[in-house]
């Protein structure tokens, strides 16, 4: 009951924050931004409470399916957005973070994690290791599994942040080129600010994803006696790393910056969502989380 209440309340907060952020950019004024940030923060705290409650109820690390993974993502996006806001004090970051956090929060609230999910998760690993009865339990109780999942989702959240910065950058670039949208020009953060946040987010995100892949491979070796299981999500993770690596390489080597990098960050994140949902829902195999 509490979990559902927390999850749906978080959704309401995120959606309201998104509406306020769009209103702020259209109609101006500081109060909508202030209320919007408060709602975003409230949504993030509610998502955290939801996950803590799920952990207590299950008695294990709860991120074992994509739905609760989405909940953790919306929490992390909020956290990173607040950290960025604390550094740059640009109210319009809300317009980037709130809608993405709302999208993942709604996805999460639609299907809460259950005891049956936990049993199924443990069972699929136990099936892979017939000699070891509690392979699934070993994974859930290990250190490497929560570290692997947390780092991978932190990487996704940072890529989401880069994409939202890309959208803000594109919006300001368009307004400056068209020489219209006075209010938008006034409220959106300067181009170098969003570009620098986007690039930094991608760099840190790539490092997190790389470490997550290494830790995942190490854990698989420990429990399943193989570094590489050929799982769709392993391939997807590697592909995502390569795509972002390519974007960074063109930026450093060929000097691609501005609108091209912003578009690439948005495009790469759309690809990430497709891969994230595709490999988790359509072809889950070992990575139904």
């Amino acid at each position, binding site marked *: 009951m509490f979990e559902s209440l927390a999850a749906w309340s978080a959704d309401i907060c995120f959606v309201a924050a998104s509406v306020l952020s769009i209103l702020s950019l259209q109609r101006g004024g500081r109060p909508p931004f202030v209320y919007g940030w408060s709602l975003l923060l409230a949504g993030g705290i509610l998502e955290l409470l939801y996950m803590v409650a799920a952990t207590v109820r299950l008695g294990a690390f709860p991120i074992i399916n994509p739905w609760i993974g989405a909940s953790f993502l919306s929490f992390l996006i909020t956290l990173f957005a607040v950290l960025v806001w604390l550094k740059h004090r640009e109210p319009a970051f809300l317009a980037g973070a709130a809608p993405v956090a709302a999208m993942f929060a709604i996805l999460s609230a639609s299907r809460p994690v259950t005891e049956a999910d936990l049993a199924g998760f443990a069972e699929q690993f136990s099936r892979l290791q017939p000699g070891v009865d509690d392979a699934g339990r070993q994974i859930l109780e290990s250190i490497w599994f929560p570290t692997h999942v947390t780092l991978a989702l932190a990487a996704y959240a940072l890529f989401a942040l880069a994409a939202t910065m890309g959208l803000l950058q594109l919006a300001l670039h368009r307004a400056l080129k068209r020489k219209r949208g*006075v209010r938008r020009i006034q409220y959106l953060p*300067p*181009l170098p600010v969003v570009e620098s946040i986007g690039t930094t987010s991608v760099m840190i995100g790539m490092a997190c994803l790389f470490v997550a892949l290494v830790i995942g491979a190490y854990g698989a070796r420990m429990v399943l006696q193989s570094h590489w299981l050929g799982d769709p999500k392993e391939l997807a993770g590697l592909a995502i790393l390569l795509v972002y690596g390519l974007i960074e390489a063109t930026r450093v080597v060929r000097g*691609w910056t*501005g609108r091209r990098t912003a578009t690439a960050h948005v495009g790469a994140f759309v690809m990430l969502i497709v891969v994230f949902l595709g490999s988790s829902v359509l072809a889950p195999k070992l990575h139904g989380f």
Partner: protein
Amino acid sequence: MDLVVVGLNHRSSSVSLRERMAMEPQVAVDFLRSLRDGGVVSDGMVVSTCNRVEVYAMSREPATAPARIGEALAARHGLQSADVFPSLYSLSGKEAVEHLFSVCASLDSMVVGEPQILGQVKEAFATAQQAGLTGGAFNRLIQRGFSVAKRVRTETQISRLAVSVSSVAVDLAKKIFQKLDQHTAMLVGAGEMAELAARHFDSAGIKELFILNRTYERAVALAQEFDAVAAPFDKLHSYLAEIDIAVFSVGAPHYVIRAAELESIMVRRRQRPLFLIDIAVPRNIDPACAEFDSVFLYDMDDLEHIADGNKALRTGEGDHARRIVKEESDAYLSWAQAQQAFPIIARLTMRAESIRKAELERTIADLNADPETAEKLERMTASIVRKLLHNPIQAIKAAQSGDDYLVLEAVRQAFGLDDERADAEERKADQAKEA
């Protein structure tokens, strides 16, 4: 005691009258002293700028004080009252407080949102304060005006929206490059418009300024004025490949920069953003140059369009700011009324208590009363005083919440609770603290 405002501004008077009525700080101090010595006001300050001359003062007689201040103003400048009075406005009480807050928040300025007025009010206040012309209540009111201005600045965009073409250009440059102290600018042409642009970019803290002109000597002369670097006009393309912002104002019948030329320049720049401002008529830059992704090209019409948009936004933000001013002035007046009522209740109670105690001691001594009788007399007199004061105290509280100054004044006079001495002591204490 009420705030009164008497003055004239850009809406109510001509420039020539404002020029004649303007007051230097020392003249303003002498003027206020004469008003105080004449018993017209107790505290005050004079705000004298090119757009307004206003006397802000605390007076016990808000109904008659404005006319006396107006006459004194006219006399001070050797003018007839009849010449000045049609242009003068006078406000008191709530209207005066709202006006003060509006002036501090730059809502009453010619260019709404301009930041100078707050500094000018602060200077006027500091001058009056140093001359010992301000007291406790007046100080608190003016300080409140400063905090209202801060709130308006924080909660609205009123002072952030550029409304002149040059400041719009600087604002756009900040959106494209963020920190101008890490970027360079170039002026192509050294005319009057270029000089104005140079002044704006210079005050915005541009890292380095280059000036190119067909007459090299003119470029050198302007460069010396702004600590800039003069360069020959034929180096235009080389400089365009290096700098970040370029302002064109060359009198030429054809384009000085064409799209084909800019294409090769952008390759040399590795597509780094370039902000081109074309303020020449006819235009110096081929409009096709705007097609390049990293080129932001603005001509005079574009800048004026944004300035007009900002003016409209300021109007909208002004409504929000006026709501803040109204809210703050209401809050201040409620607080001020409470401050006015509580000392009256305290003084009334203290006065009754001192009379009771004196009479009680005399009676106990006359009767040579034993302790038991003395205690009974103590209780009885305390009860009488409490019951007698109950209705007046209720009336004071009701008058306080109902804006009824007359009742408060009537109570003060009926019970002989003149608070001038207390005010004087308070002012003395404030001045000692500030010193």
